[in-house]
């Protein structure tokens, strides 16, 4: 693993009497694509703005390359930002927007031209130099904003929901392109989004936030397959979340039965929650499974059917490519790998 570039230590932020960040600890490594993911108001944008230098943390440190920069103004930091609404300078054309930062640094004109041209090529806007930025499409403005930030060769690029204003198709294209650009320039990208699919498909590391607290840090696979609590499980994809009791290591009990699982390290008889992803449940004949129920609805979703099976204790959501008639008596089967045990959430309103 590469070295830690940014270290957030005990970061908190109050706006008036409202605490939007409650002690954020996070290590951000060199060359990684890290996503801050969460619903609106979770503190992800505030965290980004603190790293950019637009907000000062109420408490805590921002260690950048070994130095605490929490009190250093944004114009002295080696980070650049791609803003949510692009924030291009309307009175400058494409070339001058991209050249803005280099001109501030009083760089040689020839060198500026070389760098700007190269950057415009990288983002696919060759020959757009003299265009009026206000007359560009959303996707093109987006590219100018990325070029304007990257041309300064920052160590970190911050992206504040940059794809939010684009339509679905363009969004997909830009996701791929951003990932490509990140690989090409080889610097750290910190990306803020509320879109879990975007986070999973682009990131090396996903940081799930909720109510000013980090819920889980991990690779997209970890976050999806091994959610640490109910909030993460319900925010990332669809899932069946079941209250359960951990009998002992590798044995969990719910819905009147005991199931083998692979999770360890909980106290014996600890109250836990279990998540089972809808695609991990197999529908079998009733006698082949412990949990039995009746198909109550089936919806065609294109790639799969979304089936709800009504059992004694709860409704299970199942994704399968097979068709089952509503009313059919079925059994639900899942292996030890499919059961993910999580700590119970100790606050209210945490997800659904």
């Amino acid at each position, binding site marked *: 693993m590469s070295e830690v570039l940014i270290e957030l230590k005990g970061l908190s932020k109050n706006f008036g009497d409202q605490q939007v960040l409650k002690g954020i600890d996070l290590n951000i490594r060199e060359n990684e694509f890290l996503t801050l993911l969460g619903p609106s108001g979770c503190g992800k944008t505030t965290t980004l703005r603190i790293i*950019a*230098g*637009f907000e000062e943390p109420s408490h805590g440190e921002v260690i950048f390359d070994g130095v605490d920069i929490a009190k250093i*103004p*944004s*114009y*002295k930091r080696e*980070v*650049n*930002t791609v*803003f949510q*609404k692009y*924030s*291009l*300078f*309307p*009175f*400058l*054309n494409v070339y*001058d927007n991209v050249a*803005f*930062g280099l001109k*501030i*640094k009083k760089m040689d004109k020839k060198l500026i031209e070389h760098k700007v041209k190269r950057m415009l090529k990288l983002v696919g806007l060759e020959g757009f130099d003299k265009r009026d930025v206000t007359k560009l499409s959303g996707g093109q403005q987006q590219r100018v904003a990325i070029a*304007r*930030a990257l041309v*300064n060769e920052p160590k970190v690029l911050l992206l504040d929901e940059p794809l939010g204003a684009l339509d679905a198709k363009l969004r997909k294209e830009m996701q791929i392109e951003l990932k490509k650009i990140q690989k090409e320039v080889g610097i750290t990208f910190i990306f803020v989004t509320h879109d879990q699919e975007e986070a999973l498909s682009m990131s090396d590391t996903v940081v799930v936030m909720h109510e000013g607290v980090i819920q889980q840090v991990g690779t997209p696979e970890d976050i999806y397959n091994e959610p640490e609590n109910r909030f993460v499980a319900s925010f990332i994809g669809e899932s069946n979340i079941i209250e359960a009791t951990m009998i002992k290591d590798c044995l969990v009990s719910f819905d009147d039965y005991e199931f083998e699982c692979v999770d360890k390290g909980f106290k014996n008889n600890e109250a836990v929650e279990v998540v089972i992803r809808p695609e991990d449940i197999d529908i079998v004949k009733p006698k082949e499974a412990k949990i039995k129920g009746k198909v109550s609805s089936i919806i065609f979703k294109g790639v799969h059917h979304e089936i709800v099976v009504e059992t004694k204790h709860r409704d299970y959501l199942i994704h399968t490519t097979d068709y089952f008639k509503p009313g059919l008596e079925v059994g639900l089967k899942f292996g030890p790998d499919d059961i993910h045990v999580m700590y119970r959430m100790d606050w209210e309103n945490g997800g659904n």
Partner: protein
Amino acid sequence: MKHFRKMIWPYMIWAGIIVVLPLLMIILYSVTKGGNELLNIQFTFENFKRMTEPIYVDVFVKSFKLGIISVIICLLAGYTLAYLITSFSEKVQSVLILVVTIPMWINTLLRTYAWISLLSDNGLINTVLVKLGFEPINMMYTDFAVVLGLVSDLLPFMVIPIYTSLSKMDHSLIEAAHDLGANRFKTFWRVTFKLSIPGVLNGVIMTFLLSISTFVIPKLLGGGQYTLIGNLIENQFISIGDWNFGSAISVILAFIILMSITFMKKIDKDEIEEE
């Protein structure tokens, strides 16, 4: 929409009677001789020729000098004021803007008399100075008094358009400039000021227009010997009764103002295209 077009006709007729017709009359007066009968009009350029006499050229030069000085002071003071106002919360901003505009509710004449009572030889300022043991200063009937009167009169016309352009500015552009390495000073010149240029030009045009055609302030604060274009026109119409010459001066003034506005608009456009 086409249906509603008809509804502008009453306004067109109204504007025709009270704006266009008098304007045409002034132009007609400016190119005719005095004492004309309605059906026996004698055209002449004599009125315009008279304007080239040194005494009148002097009046124009003096008026422009004073106008430009007032506009520059208004710009410096007005921009600073507008910029400071935008740094307050929205509630305070609207109160401050109200304070700036309150003088406009008071008649110019009254305001000017208020200045007299402050500036005159035995006015408030000199009384205080004498009490403190200083020599009294002669302020009335000087350039200083006229410029002071003009600036205090015109300041709101500068502050309002600049404030408007500053307050509707997208704040994230300032953050973007900081993000790209511009400190406060560079951000102001490269972003904030650039974005406020339309407001600045509107303010400059407005104050210049008003300062160049004023006649009450120079008359009261400048004393009898102080003649600006406005006073010249006023005299021709009211005291001397030479409407033809008065009209010619008005036409020239209008032409010069029109040229200056065109020039400023061109600056505005070039400024944007240049970068």
